[in-house]
């Protein structure tokens, strides 16, 4: 902050500040140390993990061996978990993005009975602790025969109140009413306006919502833990926690090295997706700002 304050700003092209960069770099270290720790320790064998210091490499370099073991342990269940997670993300987060986009747009651009109530209900329901709703949801789903199926994870993931909110405020500004009126005068129906005019205008917002819902679904832990009883439907998070828990009690089979390597492998696809989507997302954002 201090660095920001000391120099005057020229709006068009401010000078780069080393002080600011150095201060931010400190924060970067804080962000990266745990991740570095993970990378380092995912490269250790189980015995070396138990005998070497956390922030230095020690023992044989076993990262690739660990990765191979992670994918083959217990008949390659990790691979199955990865597939499940992808399924939940594509269907769950994809569906959530579509639903939130349509609803957010509807709330922003149409005036209809119950509009205010929708917002109040959504915000109110979000405030109720989801972990405690797990039991009622579980009992309901089990009456519907949905528990221990992929649907029991996917259906609750379809709702993203934050996504709804984001699209709502985004659509309010990004879609000029004139544009919609013009389309109506041309004889376009509401759905056609949505698909031909709106979606393109909302693209940056949609990508952002897709990113957030994707991360949320990928990281979803509690609900699948309650809903699923068979490891063959687990997503990565629940599976990893089970691997971690199997170090407990009689017949313990600690595989901390695989827990760590599995954790690392769980993060990587998200990081790649984020880097990849960022291009769209970044251009989308600047496009959004130009439009003002």
């Amino acid at each position, binding site marked *: *902050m201090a660095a*920001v304050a000391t120099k*005057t*700003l020229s*709006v068009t092209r*401010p000078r*780069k500040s080393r002080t*600011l*960069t150095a*201060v931010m770099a400190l924060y*970067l270290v804080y*962000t990266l140390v*745990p*991740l570095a720790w*993970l990378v380092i*320790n995912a490269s250790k064998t189980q015995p070396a993990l138990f005998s070497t210091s*956390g922030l230095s490499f020690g023992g044989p370099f076993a990262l690739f061996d660990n990765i191979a073991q992670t994918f083959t342990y217990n008949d390659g269940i990790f691979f199955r978990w990865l597939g499940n997670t992808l399924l939940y993300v594509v269907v769950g987060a994809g569906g959530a993005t579509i639903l939130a986009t*349509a*609803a957010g747009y*509807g*709330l922003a*651009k*149409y*005036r*209809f009975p*119950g509009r205010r109530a*929708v*917002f109040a209900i959504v915000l*109110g*329901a979000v*405030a*109720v*602790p989801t*972990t*405690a*709703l*797990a039991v009622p949801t579980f009992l*309901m789903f089990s009456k519907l025969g949905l528990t221990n199926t992929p649907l029991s994870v996917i259906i609750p993931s379809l*709702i993203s109140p934050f996504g709804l909110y*984001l699209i709502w*405020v985004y659509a*309010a*500004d990004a879609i000029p*009413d*004139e544009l*919609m009126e013009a389309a109506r005068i041309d004889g376009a129906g509401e759905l056609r306006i949505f698909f031909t005019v709106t979606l393109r205008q909302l693209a940056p*917002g949609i990508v952002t919502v897709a990113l957030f819902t994707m991360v949320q679904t*990928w*990281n979803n*832990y509690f609900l699948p833990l309650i809903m699923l009883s068979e490891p063959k439907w687990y997503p990565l*998070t629940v599976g*990893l926690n089970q691997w971690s828990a199997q170090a407990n009690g009689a017949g313990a089979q600690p595989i901390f090295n695989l827990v760590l390597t599995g*954790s690392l492998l*769980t*993060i990587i696809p998200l990081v790649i997706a984020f*880097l990849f989507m*960022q291009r769209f997302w970044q251009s989308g*954002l600047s496009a*959004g700002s130009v439009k*003002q």
Partner: protein
Amino acid sequence: MTSTAAPPVPAPARPAPPVRRPRRNWRGWLFVAPFMLVFALTFIAPVVYAFVLSLFRDQAFFGGTVFVGADNYAQVLADPKFWESFQRVLVFLAVQVPIMLLLALVAALAIDSARLHAAGFFRIVIFLPYAVPAVVATLMWGFIYGDHFGLAADLNHLLGTDAVKPLSQNWLLTSIGNVVTWEFVGYNMLIFYSALKVIPTELFEAAAIDGAGTFRVIRSVKLPAIRGAIVIATIFSIIGSFQLFNEPNIMRNLVPNVIGTFYTPNMYAYNLSFAGQQYNYSATVAIVMGVITAIIAYVVQLRGSRKGM
């Protein structure tokens, strides 16, 4: 709030009024209905079910279900365990949320300032922890916190003390706060950053002509412009704090004596259900927490949008 000052995240209750509104009719439901349908199934129905549960009392082993009216509510309001856990998340909220949001705001302003070397790199890396599942983040920090073999032990060794005990009784809430901060600064930074990104350049030009310094531009142009984003980030952080669960629950495996079964209200509700089979009482705790959270979120939102700048 005008549409130029507020994008993309104005206060929730006031979506920008359009110039010409189509006539009030039911067409909007075409778009909202699918969402509300799933929402009804996954949110409203369980809430209603939880409410029904909260009016009954059921014994896990003997006897049947008895209608008890508001008895469960009276019991929750007089339950010292509930209030202890509530007080804990309140302290957590009062300390952790401001720190996290301030860090996120500073990071967003710095990245947006165009004065940072490699700003894009900073933005990605700071966001990275958000991509780490809470389960993984907590397992990881749990290893690091170990004062026997973890990084904390190395640090103590380095400093020649044994003062660093992240998992001890006095440190633990701070340690959990650290994990949560680490996870969510990037997320909030991104919300602020995307709001900053769409401030119209004319506003800066006007400020530059007035000869305003960086700090003044931040104070009088940028912060007011993203107030909506700050309010919504605050609301979501408050809700998140009140629902604190994953981090303490996973860390409980390391220090069960410090993190009891009612460390946070959400953990209390969870353990009532899953360890004690006290589903009715658990549902009551959940609803009471939900009402408190909703009220506080509403107040913050009202204050946030009223405070004119």
